[in-house]
Structures are given as structure tokens and as C-alpha cells.
């Protein structure tokens, strides 16, 4: 994040429902023009957080600031932000044009200016201009997404919030819209805050990812950093396939360490995080070496994934198809990785389970 003062600042935000605390005094700064994805499993507090941010619910404690203005005390309809809902919430009794114009109509904008703005937004979202008079029911899933985006942008909000708007779409359309959304963010320069449970979506689109767990932020960082250097086993697992190797007094049971690795890990304990693509099959040289046998093999398009039974436990390895193991299931293999691919978490894996 840049050093400039944030457009959105959350201070010690707490939300409780009777005896249940959904958000535990969380803090967050969002830079102007940033695309922040908030990711977490179901029940982690993502939706509660976004509802507080847009004003659909009131926080139990804490404050939300938009630049110098405290907005958590302002009703939802007077906040200079807008949200794209999970269901899109397009009005079925209005045309595409009337939907886009709706926030402008509420602000007393003249009919001619409203229509001009709606057509401008149709252009921006790459929808044909004759869609202006089209019924919402006549639009496809992707077109509805674009109409919802156009409507959210109509009154030029300071921040656009997204509550899992792509979750109901099929895979191919979702992939297309992910790229379009990223492109729209670049073209508008707006601040986007995007809630999703899909890590893939978050990684494709966002500048930073905030991982939520049980009402708290577990880690907030760019995708590459979270992927390569997760702060906890939970984050490591949440970010995709991962191998955990327990490290005790600088030793990994069942693995051989090079002298460089022994020096780097000397006396340390915790959990070593190792991504499947960082492990190499039958390497010439490696800082960490393990032996095992192939227990299962899966074809993942251009890559192969293997489950390897090893003295250190079951490991997952991903290699290019041309590097596939000869011999198939039961074939003996040696696995290895470089020291740079190892990431040490002080926390033991069981503590996160």
C-alpha cells in the first residue's frame, strides 16, 4: 500500500450478535485506487464487515472513516459509496437504462443528463447502446453483471464494494468477468473492495488480499507475499495446496538437509511450508531431500499432480507434464527443493486446525 493517507480507515471495528462476536475489533487501511480483496471461509465475518462498511448494519464498537469523515454514523443512503450485491439486485420492473439511472434519479438529475450518463456507462461496460431499453430479464448472466456495475458507477461513488458478485456464474463466464473487472478498475481508477470466498478471484484481480478468519484479519498483503510467506498454517492452506513439514530443533524427520539448510534452520522449530510446485522430482541437487513412492497421480491439464508417500508423511507435488514420473503408481521417487522455497512458520500446524 502507498504511504498516502488512506481513503478508507477502519478502527477497532467490532460487531456482536447476542452472544456471538462476528468481528473482533479489526483495523484496516485501504489506499485510494486500490483493489482490495477480502477472502475467507464461510462464517469468517466477510459479509458482516461489508454490511457495516456500506451501512446496512451498525457496528457494536469502533469507527469507519472515509478520508476525514466518520461514516459509520451516517445512514447507508447518505454514504458516498456503492455496492454490487451477490444477487446483483437489479430491479426487475425497470429497464436496463432505468436501472442504471436509478441512483441519478434519486439525486434529482434531469432526465436528459441521466440518459447521457447511462449511455456513457453502457459504452464503458461494453454493452450495446440499444440495451438501454432492454428488460433485465432479457439480459444474460454476464450482461446483468455489467448492468449492475454500470448502475454502481452511475453516481461516481468514492468506493465500490462487491459482495461475491461472480459466485453464481459458471466457470468460463466468471473467468471472463474477473479480467473485465480488473480492467474496469484500471480504467476507472476507483477504489474497489471485493468480498469473495474464491481465492482464485482474489489473486487474479486484487492488489492486496486480506484473509479473514473467525472475525479477524489473519494476514493482509499482496497475493504473491501471502502465497509465498503465509503467516500461519491456516493462511498457507487457504492459499492453495501446500505441504507442511514439522521442524524440530532444526531437523525435519525423514528428510536430508544440505549444510546450507542446516545452517539456516539450526535450532529452530515450527512448521515448514512447501508449495507442491516448489518440490522437484529426482533433483540433481537440493537443500532438502526426501524419498518416497507415488501413491496417486492426477492430470491437471498442462501439469501433473502426485501424492507421494514419504517418511515425512503424504506430500503433494506438481510438475509439468513433460517431467512426469516414469513407472506410475508405486514408482520410487526422490523429492527435493531449494532453501529459498522453504518458508518457516513458528506456529505448529495442529494449533491452526
Amino acid at each position: 500500500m502507498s504511504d498516502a493517507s488512506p481513503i478508507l480507515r477502519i478502527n477497532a471495528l467490532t460487531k456482536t450478535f447476542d452472544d456471538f462476536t462476528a468481528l473482533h475489533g479489526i483495523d484496516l487501511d485501504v489506499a485510494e485506487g486500490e483493489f482490495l480483496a477480502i477472502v475467507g471461509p464461510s462464517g469468517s465475518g466477510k459479509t458482516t464487515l461489508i454490511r457495516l462498511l456500506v451501512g446496512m448494519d451498525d457496528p457494536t464498537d469502533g469507527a469507519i472513516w472515509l478520508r476525514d469523515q466518520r461514516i459509520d454514523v451516517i445512514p447507508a443512503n447518505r454514504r458516498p459509496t456503492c455496492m454490487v450485491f451477490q444477487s446483483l439486485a437489479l430491479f426487475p420492473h425497470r429497464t436496463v437504462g432505468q436501472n442504471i439511472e436509478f441512483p441519478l434519479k434519486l439525486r434529482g438529475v434531469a432526465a436528459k443528463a441521466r440518459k447521457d450518463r447511462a449511455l456513457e456507462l453502457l459504452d464503458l461496460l461494453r454493452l450495446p447502446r440499444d440495451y438501454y431499453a432492454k428488460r433485465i430479464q432479457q439480459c444474460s448472466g454476464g450482461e446483468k453483471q455489467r448492468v449492475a456495475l454500470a448502475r454502481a458507477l452511475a453516481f461516481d461513488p468514492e468506493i465500490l464494494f462487491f459482495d461475491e458478485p461472480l459466485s453464481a456464474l459458471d466457470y468460463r463466464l466468471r473467468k471472463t468477468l474477473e479480467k473485465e473487472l480488473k480492467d474496469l478498475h484500471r480504467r476507472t481508477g476507483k477504489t474497489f473492495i471485493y468480498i469473495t470466498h474464491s481465492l482464485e478471484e482474489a489473486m487474479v484481480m486484487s492488489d492486496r488480499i486480506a484473509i479473514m478468519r473467525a472475525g479477524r484479519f489473519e494476514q493482509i498483503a499482496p497475493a504473491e507475499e501471502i502465497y509465498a510467506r503465509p503467516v500461519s498454517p491456516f493462511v498457507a492452506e487457504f492459499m492453495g495446496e501446500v505441504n507442511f513439514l514439522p521442524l524440530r530443533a532444526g531437523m525435519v524427520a525423514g528428510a536430508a538437509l544440505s549444510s546450507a539448510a542446516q545452517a539456516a534452520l539450526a535450532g529452530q522449530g515450527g512448521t515448514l511450508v512447501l508449495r507442491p510446485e516448489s518440490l522437484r522430482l529426482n533433483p540433481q541437487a537440493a537443500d532438502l531431500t526426501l524419498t518416497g513412492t507415488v501413491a496417486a497421480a492426477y492430470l491437471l491439464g498442462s501439469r501433473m499432480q502426485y501424492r507421494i508417500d514419504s517418511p515425512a508423511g503424504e506430500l503433494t507435488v506438481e510438475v509439468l507434464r513433460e517431467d512426469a514420473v516414469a513407472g506410475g503408481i508405486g514408482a520410487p521417487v526422490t523429492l527435493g527443493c531449494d532453501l529459498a522455497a522453504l518458508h518457516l512458520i513458528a506456529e505448529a500446524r495442529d494449533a491452526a486446525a
Partner: protein
Amino acid sequence: MKTSRLASALLVAYGIAVLAFLYLPLVSVGLASVSKARYLSFPIRRYNTEWYGEALASDTVQGLLWISLKVAGIVTVSSMVIGFLGALAFARYSWRFRKPFQKLILLPIFFPQTVLGLALLMWFNALGIVPSWKTAIVAHLVWIAPIATLIVSIRAFGFDPALEEAARDMGATQWQVLREVTIPLLMPGVVSAGLFAFLLSWGNFPLSLFTTGADSTLPEWLFAKMISGYSPLVPTVGMLTVAGSAGMVAAGLILAWALRRLRPTT
């Protein structure tokens, strides 16, 4: 699923039998109204339509028609308003006593109408209110307003609460949300509720019998004339009552068509 010829024939026969069961009684009333004979007998030897002219010219029938229309009209409008507001409380908003309200609001539907009529008559007497067509409106509303609430509630349950939240998020006040989103989306349910309310009030006999006092509605008059003083005017007025119901259904269908036409098109 493909059906055999025998199964297809049986299904057609079943369909005809069901329709005959539903509509033959009404057809017999229609035939009685155009028979010259005092009582209906088959085959009908002589037809005439003079009873229709007499019914339409009769001050008594016109008076009955006017009372029935007033009662059904006021019950319809009131039920639409009560049904709309009740549905908001029933289905749209969370509040402390919502669950008991949801149960209690529907309870009058299950009361036997004769018992409900008797209870209301006793209340009117206890309160010193002289029963008339106006008290019949109250009685009809006690039974019909819950039905209207239920009809509008089904519609209210069917629409995404995010629509109202989205409107609010885009800058709408509570009133604007109601005007721009909630009312237009609930309107088909409100119109259906109004249609049902009219038909249920227009043809209601048990509640009217107990609560109209010296006044009388068309169904009450029909019953009274069947007991004593039958003439072909009775089935004729019966058919006119049915025509009134059919007219209301037609009006409802036209209104639904008009609402669809008013909706955005390409």
C-alpha cells in the same frame, strides 16, 4: 412422458367428468333462469329472457346489488391496504412479536364463518352497534383481510430483500424505497388480493346473514327467496351475481395485462 391411447382417452374422460362436476350445477341455474316454466324441468319446452329484464328493472334487485357492491368494493380496497401493510409486517420486516403475529393474523381464516358471524353479532350488540351493511364490511374484513395478507405475503416472501437494500445503498430514503421498489414489486400480489377479496365478499353468505341486520346482500336475498317465494327471478339474480364475479375476474385479468404492458419492453 408418452401415454397410450387408452390412457389418453381415460384422461380426457376424467377431465370432462371433473369439469362437468364443477360447472353443471351452474349451467342448470343458467337454464332455469331462461326457462318459462316456474320450476326447472327437462327438456325445457319454452325459453324466455323476460326475467332478466325484470331483474334489472327491479328496485329491490338494484338495491341489493348496490349494497353488495358497496360492501364488496369497500372490503376490496380495505383488504388491499391491510393486506399490503400486513404483508410488510408479516414478511418484510423483523420485529419483536413477528412470529406470533404471523400465526395469529391467519387464524380467522380457519374459524367457521357461522361462528365468526355469530361472535361478531354478539360484539356489535354488546357495543350497542346496530347491524347493517356497514357492520357486514367489518365482518367480511375479519375473514378476508387475513387471506389478502397471506396472498400479498407470498409475493413479499418471493422477492429478494437485497433489492430494497440496493435502493437504500444507492441513496433512497425509506419512503423512496417503498415507492420505487417495494410497492411496484408487490403490486401484482396486491391486485390478486383485491380480486380475491371482492369475490369472497361478493359471494359471502354466512357472515352477511349474521351481520347485515335489516339490510340484505344478494346471496342473503337468494337464500331467503329459495326458502319462501321462489320464482325464476331467483336463478336470474343468481346468474347476474355470477356475471358480476366473472366481470371482476375479467377486470382483474385486464388489469394484470395492463400492468404487464406498462412494464418496460424492448
